């Protein structure tokens, strides 16, 4: 009962903030609403026992990626990104067509996805599927080891790059 209440609070908050993300003209307000959406999504992951995904959602999306978004926005000239910006890109008709086709694409995606699982019996995931141990075993013990190592090599290269760039300026 209480869990259902919490779920609806989180779901409502995520949806409302998601609407704010697309309706605000001000990119900063959108970005901050997006952080809120990520936060409530993380809460829903946690309620689904996917604790690791929930924390990574907070750490990576709400934390690191949003701060990067904010930096990029601040590096752009915000005054030029004011009220008239959206209207300057395209006319009302073009915008309408683009928006509707985006909605249509997402709708097709959801439809195809639902067709894929239609009629199949959806079981409850086994206890502990989303724990850090289970994710670790899947990453290091299963067939995901090579992609994981390649991704970590890529991140290490990026980190070394950051060190080199920082060092040159001393």
């Amino acid at each position, binding site marked *: 009962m209480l869990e259902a209440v919490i779920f609806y609070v989180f779901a409502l908050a995520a949806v409302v903030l998601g609407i704010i993300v697309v309706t605000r003209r001000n990119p900063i307000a959108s970005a*901050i609403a997006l*952080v809120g959406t990520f936060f409530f999504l993380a809460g829903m992951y946690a309620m689904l026992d996917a*604790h690791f995904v929930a*924390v990574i959602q907070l*750490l990576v999306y709400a*934390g690191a990626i*949003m*701060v990067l978004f904010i930096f990029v926005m601040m590096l752009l000239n915000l005054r030029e990104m004011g009220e008239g910006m959206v209207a300057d890109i395209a006319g009302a008709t073009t915008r309408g067509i683009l928006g509707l086709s985006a909605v249509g694409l997402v709708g097709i995606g959801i439809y195809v996805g639902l067709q894929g699982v239609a009629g199949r019996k959806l079981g409850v995931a086994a206890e502990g599927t989303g724990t*850090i141990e289970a994710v670790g075993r899947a990453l290091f013990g299963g067939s995901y080891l090579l992609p994981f190592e390649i991704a970590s090599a890529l991140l290490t290269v990026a980190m070394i790059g950051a060190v080199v760039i920082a060092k040159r300026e001393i």
Partner: protein
Amino acid sequence: MSAAMVLDNPWLRGLVIGGGVLGVVLGIVAYAIWFERKFTGLMHQRPGPNVVGWAGLLQPIADVLKLFQKDDRLPAAVDRPLFVLAPVLMLAATMMALAVVPWGWGVVVADLHIGVLFALSITSLAAIPIWMAGWASNNKYALLGGMRAAAQAISYEVPLLLSVTVPVVLAGSFRLGDIVAAQAGGRWFALWPPGPGFFAFVLFYLSSLAEANRIPFDIPEAESELVGGITTEYGGMKFALFYLGEYLHTVVASAIASAAFLGGSDMGPLGDGLHWMLLKTLLLTASVIFVRWSWLRLRADQLMALCWTVFVPGGLVLVMASALWVHLT
């Protein structure tokens, strides 16, 4: 309803223990502010607060009462919703990290199996409200402070996570309760194994100073350059919430450091108990205050260079060393 029934119901248990922990920690924070002022007085050779109560002990209460009576002003040019939300969110983000701290004697609000990650991700999230405050203030000093806070937070998050990976690797668990249990009998990770644990503790301590915006890493509010940084436009209770959030961050980081590196509630031959955990947390908090009056503030570029050229490579080496230790023993 008996006490056992309360403790059996997870919701009530969370509410009771959570409320208790929060109350005690906020009390500690109020007196950390008193201690800081008194200690500052000592280092400046002046008495510090000494009027309200014995040795000024009632000063924090008087301060809060005064702040509550202040006019809740809203500057005209601010972005109202963000401006009002920022201090509340900043404090809330910091408070949430308290949930996973094991205080000893089974006092823990929620010993999550991702405890360490949860605490660090939620406290690093406090950077966003700080940046929000800087932006919503519509003030160039506040915005500069906010940008510095954001840059500092994402940079120092990396060594912070790397340093805390060392006890995680050594204990084989992300649960703070397990990490404390693995240090039972005085085998604190800061002391044993010699090397990685101690340096990881130092790294964690310094990175936490940066995350909590404390001197020598307090460039987001550097009063000599930025007036008051993000807090420039804030006054009354809203300012107090930022102040409280910053101190709370220090106390929370001290508590996590005590649990992850200094054995938590364990005191070797002297036994085990909540009082030891509190003592360690308070000593670490006091040391942060000592650092404040002993070192100068770094420049923004020095801060970034220190992070990326010393802390991050050092943290990687420490993680590898601890993994090697676990592999060999």
